[in-house]
């Protein structure tokens, strides 16, 4: 049966409903860009006499153990966390996808060995690998980004390899060869673009993990160190005070983490729908 076909300039049909899943991510990005400028108070300004005050009109999220405004710190951390996540994921997605796609395309012995390499990488508990890498590279934002990129590489390698290998000899790919596209172009112009929908989902999931990874490392005292505001650092600082009743110190940074990961998932789903040619009518 033919579905009703409607042509629309943007293909997916622009409406509030299709824009909705993107709003949380857009808000997050806006906060990251504006970031520290929006903070009502200096995130690093200590005022010990104001330590651990509950949320109030002056301090929306309360204050931390050194009297710093928690709201400002959470806000300021947005930029750093998003930068780390996007940096790590774009590095591992690019390298992993290209390598995996090439491997799946070429096949043969190279591909078999690549498969074994991926299996070895994935046999390690990845967080432990990240720990080891950061410990070796030293505590800095850069080392967190590298470590996160490395441990996420296998996912893209495997994904790209499997997808490309399964489509390498599909009829529509053979048709491209008949149309005069050499092997390199078949891989780059035909097969790689077909990976977009799957990649979009993987990237959105990955962004969430990457943030959690960075936050986890900071929580353990590696990577980003206080006083730099970063959600993991904030959770770490606040976690010590939960039992004594100062619930706000850990809750708000935790909520920020949650909000970020949720908005990535929403956007990832919406992105996949956008990139799927079948959704266009």
């Amino acid at each position, binding site marked *: *049966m*033919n*579905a*009703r076909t409607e042509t629309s300039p943007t293909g997916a049909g622009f409406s509030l409903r299709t824009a909705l899943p993107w709003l949380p991510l857009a808000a997050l990005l806006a906060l990251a860009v504006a970031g520290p400028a929006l903070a009502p108070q200096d995130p690093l300004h200590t005022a010990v006499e104001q330590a651990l005050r509950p949320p109030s009109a002056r301090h929306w999220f309360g204050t931390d153990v050194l009297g710093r405004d928690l709201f400002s710190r959470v806000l300021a951390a947005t930029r750093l966390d998003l930068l780390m996540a996007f940096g790590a994921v774009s590095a591992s997605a690019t390298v992993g996808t290209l390598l995996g796609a090439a491997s799946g395309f070429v096949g043969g012995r190279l591909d078999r060995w690549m498969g074994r390499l991926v299996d070895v990488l994935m046999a390690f508990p990845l967080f432990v690998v990240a720990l080891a890498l950061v410990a070796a590279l030293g505590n800095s934002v850069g080392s967190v980004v590298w470590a996160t990129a490395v441990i996420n590489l296998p996912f893209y390698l495997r994904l790209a390899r499997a997808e490309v290998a399964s489509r390498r000899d599909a009829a529509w790919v053979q048709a491209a060869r008949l149309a005069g596209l050499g092997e390199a172009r078949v891989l780059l112009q035909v097969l790689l673009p077909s990976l977009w929908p799957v990649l979009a989902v993987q990237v959105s999931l990955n962004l969430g993990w990457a943030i959690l990874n960075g936050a986890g490392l900071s929580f353990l005292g590696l990577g980003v160190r206080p006083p730099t505001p970063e959600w993991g650092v904030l959770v770490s600082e606040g976690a010590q005070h939960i039992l004594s009743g100062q619930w706000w110190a850990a809750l708000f940074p935790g909520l920020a983490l949650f909000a970020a990961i949720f908005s990535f998932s929403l956007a990832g789903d919406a992105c996949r729908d956008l990139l799927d040619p079948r959704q266009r009518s």
Partner: protein
Amino acid sequence: MSANPHPPISPPASPLLEVRDLSIGFAAAQAAQAGRPVLPTIERLSLHVQPGQTLGLVGESGSGKSLLALAVMGLLPPTARILGGSLQVAGQNLLNATPGQWQQLRRHTLAMVFQNPRQALNPVRPIGLQLQDALQSRAPLSRAQAQAQALALLEQVEIDQAPARLKAYPHELSGGMCQRVLLALALSREPRLLLADEPTTGLDITTQAAILKLLTRLANERHMATLLITHNLTMARQHCSHLAVMHAGQLVEAGPADQVLQQPLHPYTRGLRAATPQRGLALADLQAMPGGLPDLGRADLPACRFAERCPQVQTRCDTQFPEWRPQASAPSEALHRAACWSLI
């Protein structure tokens, strides 16, 4: 006079399958369409199948033939809605049957064979066990009994080396063998009505012929009625005593097979015939019909959905679905009839 494999049963007893003015549509996908009435995919369809008879349901892909079969089996997708009419099997009204009644029907009265045989079988279970599952679902049988009956069924459908095949998985069998297994599964119901939805699609020519011969033999031996859905007129002629021709969800012609094919009344049937290869006709002697099935989602669909492709279209074809000629209040399948304004 005719070389039909089964002459019409007479006198016509009460029909095994009786479809009367049945309309089926799909629920609106978008809220925006909620205001408009649901356009029927199948519109006011009436046909009968007598016990032991083979009725061919003929028409292009997308004309609603499979949908009708699913309705008879109670397997309509959740978005489908019965918009009107009645559907009866062996006198039992199916439209308000309970799930328990459906289960009884599908265990003892109705069976269906599908287009893609390999996909209709469980890929991770040997076919012998799938047959035993089917047998044991309708009667308490010991494992030995079920195994023996499964073997007997495989031999009935002419699978060679049957004992070895019992342990085979669907992917180890050819398409033709998978279809035979599906037939065996259907036969395990000892059905009174078998629905076959394009059972030979994708099979080799020699296999197609063998499967259809098998179907005919089994139907004869068991006095089993068959509804054979196909878009292939030649196949319909060879294996059916009666035909019903559907276009875009509307029944346009029905009657005994050789009458419908040799003296087609409806322009659509004539068009199908003119496009079907025959011995003695060259490529230039055949004719394709212009256009294709109309988009059923349109708001401006003509009353007779063939109007836009019809060489004999009139103005009233747009506004009113034609009356049947010859008229009959309760038409029997022995009557060759068509719905076309050009006949009036």
